């Protein structure tokens, strides 16, 4: 019985979506590379005094969090597997390379 419960727990924990925190600091996304699964969440925080943004045009995962002021948290959910980029529309060098896989 214990083994069954343990196995169930292990399976369910692998199915639970994770949250990845990406900070925006010194005009850089930290981390700049993410390996996620479909259903996971990326939460953007902003430690810079100036405002930022995060968006992607990747088909199936499109989002644009709009202007993000310091201290504000905004989250998006990964909907589709694939490789894509997330950028800040205000600061051209800011980039995250994302690899999303199916669960």
């Amino acid at each position, binding site marked *: 019985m214990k083994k069954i419960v343990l196995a169930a727990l292990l399976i369910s924990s692998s199915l639970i979506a994770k949250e990845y925190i990406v900070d925006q600091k010194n005009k850089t996304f930290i981390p700049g590379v993410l390996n996620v699964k479909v259903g996971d969440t990326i939460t953007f925080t902003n430690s810079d005094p100036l*405002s930022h943004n995060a968006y992607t045009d990747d088909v199936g995962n499109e989002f644009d969090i709009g202007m993000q002021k310091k201290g504000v948290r905004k989250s998006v959910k990964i909907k589709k597997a694939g490789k894509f980029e997330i950028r800040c*529309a*205000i600061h051209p*060098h800011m980039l995250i390379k994302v690899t999303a896989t199916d669960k």
Partner: protein
Amino acid sequence: MQLFLLLFFTLSLYASEGEEIYKNACVSCHAIDGKSSNNLAFLVKPRKLSLTILRNQQSFAITKEGAHFWGAHSDIMPSFKYLLTDKQIHSVTDYISKTFNPNIEKKIAKLMQSSQQLTLLQRENRLQLGEKIFKKTCALCHGIKGDAKSEYVSASKENKTFIYPYNLTRTLLDEEQIFLYAKYGGLYWGTQKDNMQSWSSRYNDVALKSVAYYIQQKIKKLD
């Protein structure tokens, strides 16, 4: 021969008048070498005249009307039209162009030549592509109408980072210059702040030329 000497003498006087005016009116901000490396530079952040993208006639227009008239937020670069005659302004901008930035036309031509050329199809679609990119990225700072009124500018006052983008409806840059300014960024063209960054890592030449075309066609109100 006499006519030649007279012409040479007149031109020399004209040039020296420009230099004289520059030393009296411009040096305090732009410095003797045009590189803005003086004591006031840290306060007023004047442009480095040795790197400016402006052509001679555009320098004349800026000097005459002041930078605010042409879209700058502030009037730190003031209008000189009440202090100097058109002839005097011409002489000083001639001096600036010849002394600090004599090869700007060649530089612009060379950079344009080495940039990616648009195909016929890309030329036909550039307005739509330019509009899309402008609204996605440029508008965040410059405003959807290009008039420098945006949520980001308002936020920068709240968080005291103070961003003052150009009012693009009034810019005197032409389409080629807008493209080159967006491609290489403000520092490359002599600003001392990195607010207008180089967009070459984000967009290719086709995209940036499309944005420049959109700004030229739909945003600029002065020509």
